[in-house]
């Protein structure tokens, strides 16, 4: 594999690596025929990020030397990031960046050609790996909104940098609301400051969602993509479904596209994320109707054994994508929150009598290779019926 990046694209590549570094600790680098893909996943497998740079992004792009198989590798994010650490320096001094992966030497060579003839060569060690592929389909998500990244960037400005999660939802009057999410704590009334940001429908280029839908996801991970999209001046699309289903954030350009898939909090764990329902005790049954136990719902224990299996399996030449089960929530059409959309969205977080809700991000979007046909297993605290069989 050999590719050459020149001019301003070097900084774009550097920024992409910075965004990816907010998600995971390992970078999966895979040269494909339709471009170079950089992927990462976080340690709890609840966030996945992928950037695909089209061949046109490079001055020269050769996915594989003729006669050789396509190589892919996994390197420590820290090592790769150290090459692009200072973006200001990249912009000022680097003229060209050449990345080459040689099967013979076990090194990924990144060469930066700088001003004044100075040349920086980094020989990074890497590991062979399987293809990292998450299963997701933006088209299958019923809700979508698209806005310039700048609008969303301004919208998240008021939130404290330490804030972990944010709830995004559609409120009355088709307003998009971003609200800080805090776990229920004993002294939450004393400590928490809730911040809420409303955006009108006119700020969005496309808004395809019903009032009352809301999802809660990790803001820190989202900021990674947002900063990249803002600097590249791109539009950001958010595809989402019911709470608990992963939310897909995409940016697209003629030269690159990026996908960030973040897990969202499922409804059974949280009531305060429901932005359209102010009735305190009613939400319990209604929200459960929304929650969809998935055929592929893994209890956390299964994740590790599944992941180990994924990494030790020898992939065949042809199939780069792991065989997976479709996760489309066929049986559960999105329910309209008809009965409780009259009230304003300034709901108090509803108090749950009894035990505090456990918060779990579940990784729901990796296909299984252990048993392509599995009997559906719901998580133990299933509060709604199983869907009928495998999807």
């Amino acid at each position, binding site marked *: 594999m050999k590719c050459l990046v020149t001019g301003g694209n070097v900084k774009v590549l550097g920024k992409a690596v910075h965004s990816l570094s907010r998600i995971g600790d390992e970078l999966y680098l895979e040269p494909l025929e339709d471009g170079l893909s950089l992927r990462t996943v976080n340690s709890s497998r609840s966030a996945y990020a992928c950037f695909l740079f089209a061949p046109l992004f490079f001055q020269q792009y050769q996915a594989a030397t003729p006669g050789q198989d396509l190589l892919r590798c996994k390197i*420590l994010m*820290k*090592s790769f990031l*150290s090459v692009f*650490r*200072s973006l200001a*320096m990249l912009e000022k*001094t680097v003229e060209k960046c050449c990345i080459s992966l040689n099967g013979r030497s076990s*090194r*990924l060579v990144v060469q930066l050609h700088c001003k*004044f*003839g*100075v*040349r*920086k*060569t*980094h*020989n*990074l*060690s890497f590991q062979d790996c399987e293809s990292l592929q998450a299963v997701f389909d933006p088209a299958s998500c019923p809700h979508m909104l698209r806005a310039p990244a700048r609008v969303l960037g301004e919208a998240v400005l008021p939130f404290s940098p330490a804030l972990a999660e944010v709830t995004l939802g559609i409120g009355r009057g088709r307003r998009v609301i971003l609200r800080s999410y805090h776990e229920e704590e004993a002294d939450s009334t004393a400590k928490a400051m809730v911040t809420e940001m409303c955006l009108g429908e006119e700020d969005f280029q496309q808004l395809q969602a019903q009032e009352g839908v809301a999802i809660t996801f990790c803001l820190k991970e989202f900021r990674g993509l947002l900063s990249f999209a803002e600097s590249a001046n791109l539009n950001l699309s958010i595809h989402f479904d019911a709470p608990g289903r992963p939310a897909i954030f995409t940016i697209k350009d003629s030269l690159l596209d990026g996908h960030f898939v973040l897990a969202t909090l499922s409804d059974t764990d949280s009531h305060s994320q429901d932005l359209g329902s102010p009735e305190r005790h009613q939400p319990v049954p209604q929200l459960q109707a929304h929650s969809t136990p998935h055929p592929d719902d893994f209890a956390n224990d299964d994740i590790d054994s599944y992941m180990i299996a994924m990494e030790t399996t020898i992939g065949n030449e042809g199939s780069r994508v792991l065989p997976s089960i479709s996760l489309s929530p066929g049986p559960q059409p999105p329910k309209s929150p008809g009965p409780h959309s009259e009230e304003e969205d300034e709901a108090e977080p509803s108090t749950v009598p009894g035990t505090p809700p456990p918060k779990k991000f579940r990784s729901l979007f990796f296909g299984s290779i252990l048993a392509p046909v599995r009997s559906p297993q719901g998580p133990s605290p299933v509060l709604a019926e199983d869907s009928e069989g495998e999807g």
Partner: protein
Amino acid sequence: MPLLTQQIQDEDDQYSLVASLDNVRNLSTILKAIHFREHATCFATKNGIKVTVENAKCVQANAFIQAGIFQEFKVQEESVTFRINLTVLLDCLSIFGSSPMPGTLTALRMCYQGYGYPLMLFLEEGGVVTVCKINTQEPEETLDFDFCSTNVINKIILQSEGLREAFSELDMTSEVLQITMSPDKPYFRLSTFGNAGSSHLDYPKDSDLMEAFHCNQTQVNRYKISLLKPSTKALVLSCKMEFCSRHPVWTAMAQSWLTATSTSQVQVIFLPQPPKHLGLQAPTTMPSLIFVFLVESRVGQAGLGTRDLRAP
């Protein structure tokens, strides 16, 4: 500084060293560049002051402050030597604050009476005078190098702007910095071997950054990065950096490097790591690497051009 000169004019004779400076920052910035150890040894001769900081007998940093920088500079004896706490000295020199207010200058008058006496500093800004007395100590023996030009093996002078980022981004997980100087490719290379892999920084000999390139033989030497990194503070201030590989020759006398120009320089001498197969051999027989940072001092005097660094 009329306020102070009247007071002490008659008493000047009792001091072995008297130096006055209109802008103390000219002195403090240079001393900060070598401030990687707490103590320093000062040598003053009629040509100026040399301040030496040493670390583990592997690194020696010298700051040469020419007499021409001072408004008044008198040394009564042949040479004046003392050891002083550099941290305390720098704290005193910046007693009026390290960021200067526009338009105000802090003036300095430094007096040293001789062996056993403290160093007196009179600092004045805006009519406020501070008097500092810093105890001096027995001067330590420092390694003295004789810089005969015939001992030079390789010498490269680069503009500092091309090196500052390189040094700030050095991979600190690497134990050593390997410096290659060669008449053939790669000409001049800085390499690190860290956890991520190896990194090489190449400067070609025809680069615009290269001011002088004299390489006679290929030399590859390794230096401990932990000793090297703090000493490159001077890079921030300097306009040029010289990498010089010489064979040191021991002498008993301290050579005077100072000439009557107004450019100050900071010189850092590194002794390389002996190769492992030789065991713990004393590094004195191996060629040492000398970094020389040329620091411009903001005095406003003419003549801050390049100078021959191999001045006698």
